[in-house]
């Protein structure tokens, strides 16, 4: 196994997985639903159907656009795909406190949104 200075590994869903210093997965392919549940638990979140809808949508966003969305594009994208009533920051904040774009990206196994201030 490669060992670099900034290489942290973590036991997630029974596997050793490379993560960065903030706990984001280093490799997209390491993600699984079990890994998502472990990360969510660390963030104090129990995943429901509503969470999964957003997580799957985030992964679709990343595969389409090659970036993790900041808050505003995420809200818009949710509006397009999950319905207008869910397209607001309060709804997303309730699911993924305290910072929906960051926390949901982490659970979805994506890189930290670079442009998230």
């Amino acid at each position, binding site marked *: 196994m490669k060992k670099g200075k900034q290489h942290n590994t973590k036991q997630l869903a029974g596997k050793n997985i490379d993560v960065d210093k903030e706990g984001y997965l280093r490799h997209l392919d390491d993600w699984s639903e079990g890994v998502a549940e472990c990360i969510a638990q660390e963030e104090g979140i129990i995943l429901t159907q509503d969470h999964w809808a957003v997580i799957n949508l985030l992964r679709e*966003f990343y595969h389409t656009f090659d970036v993790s969305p900041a808050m505003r594009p995420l809200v818009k994208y949710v509006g397009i795909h999950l319905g207008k009533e869910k397209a607001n920051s309060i709804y997303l904040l309730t699911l993924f406190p305290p910072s929906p774009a960051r926390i949901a990206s982490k659970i979805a196994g994506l890189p930290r949104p670079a442009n998230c201030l």
Partner: protein
Amino acid sequence: MMMAAEGNTTTMNAPKKLLFVLRQAPYGSTLAKDALDAILATSAYEQDLSIAFIDDGVFQLINNQQSELIDQKNIARILSALPLYDITQLFVCAASLAERGITLGAISEDITVLEPEALRTLLSQQDHLLSF
């Protein structure tokens, strides 16, 4: 970062006109990706933001970029996310396209083609130009 400092001195009701001028081909250096990172970050400040693709920058617009072969992010794919960031003012230099034999059919973005004269006008209307 420069933008943040700028924000402090700008009153809320007077958004600045910012034009990002992109002149570099997408993968020869990291400039194209750096510019996009700056653009996406700047969009959070809700300024009057537009982008002009000039010189080799027009190569960034070509669809069907196979960046995964060199293990890089796909610039064209990131550009296609711009409407979700409320960035819709995209311009491309007609002369730069013509010099490189690029037709609009090779470009997937919804973009306004400007002749050099109109481009000069656009540049002169801005509060700030950010060149990459």
